[in-house]
Every structure is written in structure tokens, then in C-alpha cells.
């Protein structure tokens, strides 16, 4: 897939960074992972100062995109200052530099608000009082044009959540702000618990970055704590491609894109995105770019400072009012899509259950054949190809997955022929003549047989004291037994476990010896092959 131009030069020194994808109804939304504005490079998940209505707010960029009309947009998740939510703080005493992460879905009664929340003319003011008094105007994230961004901010998460890498003292000292609680805009409650998904973005993006993990682009990402958003481009990074209908018409369109499209886009974006993405934090790197004409000239990367120049296009009002609408479907689409998106799509196939049924029916009909002496690294599709080219028969193959007790020298596969005759013929041919595969392996086939899986209720090796079974009705007992745990050295359990380990070791040695012997025998014979088959 060809990537479109990465840099869009314009008079405000704006450059796109690495493009990470394409989306939108006509595939004309471009998603990016970073951009440069005013000489400062901003990355996805940076924390930035946003200029809004004579006031600086702090937000975290979660999406960067460019619309087909070349308007650059970002989606930003809010951090609330204590003063903004003082109504709900109650007894909670925040620290002097503490802020709160916005989470949850806003009431989103934006349609009550007649004015569109981004591309708003400057006349739309008084958002702050509105937020305090009108629940409906709370939002957790908002989209805006890039020019509202005016600098990076260093925000550190001090939450004790186990998903959050703890900051060092140095980090804390250097931080502009810290946060360890969220403010849910839907319920207007403060809580130290972080939900798994905030504004369609996985919560780990809001935690501190782990040391050493790279961001979308390599350098500049060192500032792992609160990345400051790039003022110039609005990044809207979220799985949910809520980018359709750019806000041009002023309506906050959060309509969820159809899931299929999501998946397709995500797949595409995934293909495009660099695999330099670290494993951890950037699972959902689907950055959709929507480029808004940056009229803003002055969004200099003022570090932590207020921007003196009034950006003209501050029409993007971070409608602090309830627009953080994330329809549940979008959320689940995003999550679903991203989960499958992370792996190459080709691998996920039918679940094994249907295979069991197929095998059973084939076994009953007599079309099941067990092929042996295959190279263990073959895949099922290769086996199908082999049968096709050798017997001119179509069918379905399934390589048996390897486990510790399978021989490393040869693999087995089930093959379901289309008809009983074909199966019989194949077997007799394999017996009579010789089908030599590469590597000097003659294919062996025989009638496949299937073992009925019985749902064993007892497992060899798991012991329970019968008398205690009555006592075990108590909940704690159940929990105690079913929790998976390491065995402690001072228990009987430990001694018994060691006995099992010894047994395992012994059997492993036996298998090793057997395999070695097999290998020798095979080698002996193979070396006698006169004609050379492909190694």
C-alpha cells in the first residue's frame, strides 16, 4: 500500500510525521503517529497544553488525522484541573499540581448545545462556568484542530495501579503535573481506579510509559511521561474510526463506523504501521489523520508556557461539555478490532470444534486418512497441496499440533478425502508404490482412527481428601483450591509436587533417548538413498 506524502509543508512550519494508516469512508482519511509543528515534534499520546478560550488546558493526544479536505485534527483526552471539578471534589484534597484524567462517557447532550463544539467561532465562550454547573457539558475528550495546541506538558501518572510503571523521584520532580485519579464525566465521580479503556484508548497509554519502550517514532519519544500533544495536528487516535463525517458540518458525529469497516481499516493500518512499535503500549496504533488547515501561526512549542499569541483558529473548543461520547458499540468495535488486528488476520481460522465434528463424520464415513512421516514444519495447506499434486484429490488437511510427546522427526496429519473411494485408493497407492517427498521422506498413510474424548472429571494427580469435601462447600475452600499458585516449600503439597517433577524429568529423559535412537535409525537409512531428493 503506498503511503501518501508524509510532509505537508505550509506556512506554519507544520510537518506530518510518520503515517500510520488510512481510513474513512473513502479511504481518504490519513492517520499519523506524530507531527511537527512550530519546530516541536509531537507524538501520539503526548500531553499538551491546549489553548481554549483564554485558558490553557491539558490534554493527551490520542488520535491524529487529516481529513480529505486536508484539515488536520487531533482528538484529545482531557485532564481536569481541581478547580474545574471542585463541585464534585468533596473532601478530596488534591495536591498542588494534581490533575484528574477524564474518563467515561460524557452525557453528551451536545444536541442541547446549539453550537457545534469544534470549529466554533470565538463567540462561543463561557465554557468553564458551563461545565461546572451543567453536567451535560462535561466531556472526556474532544476533537480539535491542531493549532489549538501550544506546547508540551509533562504529566506523570503516580497511580499505584499495577499496569502503571511507577515514576522515579526524578520523574516526579520534573513533572509539571501528576495524576492518579480519574474523573468520570458520566457519573461525576473521582476514583483512583482506572478503567480499561478511556476514550477508546487503552488505559496503558495513559499510564507512564515503560522505560525503554519506543513510541511511534523513535526519537523525541523519550519524554514518556505525559507527552504533550502537538498543537499543530489534531490527532485522533482511537480504534474507533469516529473520523467519518469530519466536524465540518459542526455536528459532533460519533456514529460508530460499521464494524466490518473498522476491521478492514485496522487491518490496513496495521499493515502500514511500523513494526517498530513496541510490543506493549501501542497495540492500537490506528491513527487516523484528518488534516485541518492550520491557520494557526503561532503554536510554538512553548514548553509549559502559555502561548502569547492567540491562535486564530481556536474555534475548536474543547467542548468541555459532554461530548466525550463514545457509544458503546464504538468502544467494543475498537476493542474487538484491535485485538484481532494485532495478529496477522490469516492465522485465525475456524475454531477447533468444528474440526472435531468433521473428523468424526469423516471417520464414520471412512474418508479419514492419517498421513505420517511428514516434515513437522509443514502446514495444513501444504499438506493439502501435496495430496492434490500427488493424487489429484481435493480434501481438507489438518496437521496435528506438536506436543511434548510427539516425535520431532515426523509429523502427522489428518486428511479428509471427498469420498471413500478416494481415501481407499490413496491408501493402497501409498502402500504399494512410494510417494517420496522432499527430504527423503516417503509418505505413509493409513486409516485414520479417532479417539473419543471423554470428559474426565478426575485428573490423574489431583488429589482431594474425601472427608474434607463436605467442608469444601465453604467459599474460601473453593477459592483456596482453585487459585493457581506456586507451591510453598513447607507443605506436603510441595513434597508431592516434587515427586511429580521427578517423574516428569524421568519421562523426559526417556523420550529424549527414544528420539535419539529414532534419529539414528532414520539417518542410517536416508544416507543410503541413492538418488538425491531435495534436502
Amino acid at each position: 500500500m503506498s503511503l501518501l506524502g508524509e510532509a505537508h509543508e505550509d506556512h506554519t512550519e507544520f510537518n506530518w510525521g510518520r503515517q500510520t494508516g488510512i481510513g474513512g469512508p473513502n479511504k481518504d482519511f490519513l492517520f499519523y503517529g506524530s507531527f511537527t509543528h512550530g519546530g516541536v515534534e509531537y507524538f501520539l499520546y503526548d500531553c499538551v497544553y491546549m489553548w481554549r478560550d483564554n485558558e490553557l488546558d491539558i490534554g493527551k493526544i490520542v488520535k491524529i488525522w487529516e481529513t480529505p479536505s486536508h484539515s488536520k485534527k487531533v482528538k484529545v483526552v482531557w485532564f481536569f484541573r481541581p478547580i474545574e471539578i471542585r463541585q464534585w471534589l468533596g473532601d478530596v484534597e488534591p495536591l498542588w499540581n494534581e490533575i484528574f484524567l477524564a474518563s467515561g462517557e460524557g452525557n453528551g447532550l451536545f444536541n442541547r448545545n446549539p453550537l457545534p463544539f469544534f470549529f466554533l467561532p470565538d463567540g462561543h465562550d463561557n465554557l468553564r462556568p458551563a461545565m461546572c454547573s451543567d453536567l451535560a457539558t462535561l466531556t472526556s475528550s474532544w476533537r480539535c484542530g491542531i493549532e489549538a495546541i501550544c506546547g508540551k506538558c509533562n504529566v506523570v501518572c503516580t497511580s499505584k495501579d499495577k499496569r502503571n510503571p511507577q515514576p522515579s523521584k526524578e520523574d516526579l520532580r520534573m513533572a509539571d503535573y501528576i495524576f492518579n485519579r480519574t474523573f468520570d464525566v458520566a457519573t461525576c465521580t473521582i476514583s483512583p481506579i482506572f478503567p480499561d479503556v478511556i476514550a477508546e484508548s487503552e488505559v496503558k497509554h495513559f499510564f507512564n510509559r515503560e522505560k525503554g519502550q519506543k513510541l511511534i517514532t523513535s526519537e523525541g519519544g523519550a519524554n514518556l511521561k505525559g507527552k504533550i500533544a502537538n498543537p499543530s495536528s489534531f490527532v485522533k487516535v482511537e480504534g474507533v474510526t469516529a473520523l467519518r463525517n469530519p466536524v465540518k458540518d459542526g455536528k459532533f458525529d460519533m456514529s460508530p463506523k460499521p464494524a466490518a469497516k473498522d476491521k478492514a481499516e485496522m487491518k490496513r493500518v496495521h499493515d502500514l504501521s511500523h513494526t517498530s512499535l513496541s510490543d506493549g503500549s501501542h497495540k492500537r496504533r490506528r491513527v487516523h489523520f484528518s488534516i485541518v488547515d492550520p491557520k494557526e501561526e503561532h503554536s510554538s512549542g512553548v514548553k509549559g508556557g502559555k502561548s502569547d499569541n492567540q491562535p486564530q483558529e481556536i474555534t475548536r473548543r474543547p467542548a468541555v461539555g459532554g461530548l466525550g461520547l463514545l457509544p458503546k458499540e464504538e468502544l467494543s468495535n475498537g476493542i474487538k478490532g484491535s485485538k484481532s488486528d494485532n495478529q496477522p488476520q490469516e492465522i485465525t481460522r475456524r475454531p477447533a470444534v468444528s474440526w472435531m465434528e468433521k473428523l468424526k463424520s469423516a471417520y464414520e464415513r471412512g474418508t479419514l486418512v492419517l498421513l505420517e512421516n511428514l516434515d513437522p514444519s509443514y502446514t495444513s495447506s501444504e499438506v493439502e497441496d501435496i495430496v492434490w499434486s500427488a493424487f489429484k484429490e481435493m480434501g481438507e488437511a489438518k496437521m496435528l499440533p506438536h506436543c511434548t510427546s510427539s516425535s520431532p522427526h515426523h509429523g502427522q496429519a489428518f486428511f479428509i478425502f471427498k469420498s471413500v473411494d478416494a481415501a481407499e485408493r490413496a491408501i493402497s497407492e501409498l502402500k504399494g508404490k512410494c510417494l517420496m517427498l522432499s527430504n527423503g521422506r516417503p509418505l505413509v498413510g493409513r486409516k485414520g482412527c479417532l479417539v473419543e474424548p471423554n470428559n474426565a472429571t478426575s485428573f490423574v494427580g489431583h488429589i482431594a481428601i474425601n472427608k474434607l469435601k463436605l467442608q469444601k462447600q465453604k467459599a474460601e475452600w473453593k477459592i483456596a483450591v482453585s487459585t493457581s499458585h506456586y507451591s510453598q516449600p513447607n507443605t506436603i503439597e510441595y513434597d508431592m509436587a516434587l515427586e511429580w517433577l521427578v517423574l516428569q524429568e524421568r519421562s523426559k529423559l526417556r523420550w529424549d533417548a527414544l528420539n535419539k535412537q529414532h534419529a539414528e535409525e532414520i539417518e542410517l537409512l536416508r544416507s543410503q538413498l541413492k538418488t538425491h531428493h531435495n534436502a
Partner: protein
Amino acid sequence: MDSAKAKANYAAFEERVRRTVYVDNLSPQVNESILKSAFNQFGNVQKVEFIPNYAEESNMPCCVLVEMDSPELAKELVQAMSNQPFMVFGMPRPVRVCAAEMEMFEHRPQKPGTKITCLWLEPQNPDFTIAEKLKELTRRHAAEASFLLQYQLEEEEKLAKQQAETLEANYKKYELIEKVLKDGTAKRLGHRYGINEFDA
């Protein structure tokens, strides 16, 4: 086939394999959520995949592929669990953990760039006899392997029975002692013989 794409797929798959651990000796009653919560203690579990057991004995222990977040985590797990017994869903048989291999995955992509050839050998071909021998060998190996497997299963059953008996016996002893202490028999006997420790 788009070979660049195939290569990328394969590389991604390899990376996945590195992140995955193979867990053996699981009770058939274990399900995905149990495993997830078990392994979530160490790190984020991305995926749990059961390896279905088609051709072997039906009461063999189950095996599972657990995909973690990073290869380092996977390696750590393998090391830790090989040294210390880890129980999942029951005691005292510990699970066995080792690094996953490509062949363990049921659905895996083809290795790009491999070509397989096949050739029908006629009886006149000098290699025919060798090939026949190889076929025989394969069959014999399969038989030997299944025999060894049977033997292993029998051994495991023996050990389990033995442990169960020991445990029962020990438990009976404990019960006996408790009973005696509780109903005062110990105290009375103690008085008789001049041992007064049971007066507690």
C-alpha cells in the same frame, strides 16, 4: 501469493511464537478463564489457545498455549516454573511449562520460500527398497512412541495413587490425634502415666 506479505506474516508469527509458553499437564477441567487468571499474576496474557488432542489417548493431560506480552516474560515464566512447582486448578500435580515451538500451533502460516516436491517411485527404482524400509521405520517409531506414552501414563497413575494413599493415611492419623485430644482421652491417659502436658 504476495511474498512480501507472506514473509511479514511469517515474521509476525515467529514473534508470536517467541512470546508464547506451552503449558502441559493440565486437568481437563481447566478452562480459559482459569488459565488467564493464573498467568495474569505474572503479566498480561494476550491469548490462551487450547491444543486439541485428536489422536492420542483421551485422558491425557491437556496442553495449552499461553501467549504473553513479551518474549522476556515468556522466558521468565518458563524458568520460574521449571524450578518451582506451580499449581493450576488442583494439587499437587504441577504444570509443566516450556517455550513454545512453531509446530505446536494449530494454525500457522506457511514458511515463505519453501517448496515441496513429490515423486512417485516405481519398484524398479533402486531407492524403492530404501523407501519401503523408511516407511516401515516410520510405523515402528510410531508404535514405539505410543508405547512409551502408555508407559508414562501408567507411571503417572501409579504415583498419583500412591500419593493419594499416603495422604489419606496421614490425614487419618491427624484425625485420630485430634479426636483423642478433644475428647479428653489423652488427658486421662496422661494423668495415668504422670504426663501432664495434655491439660491445656
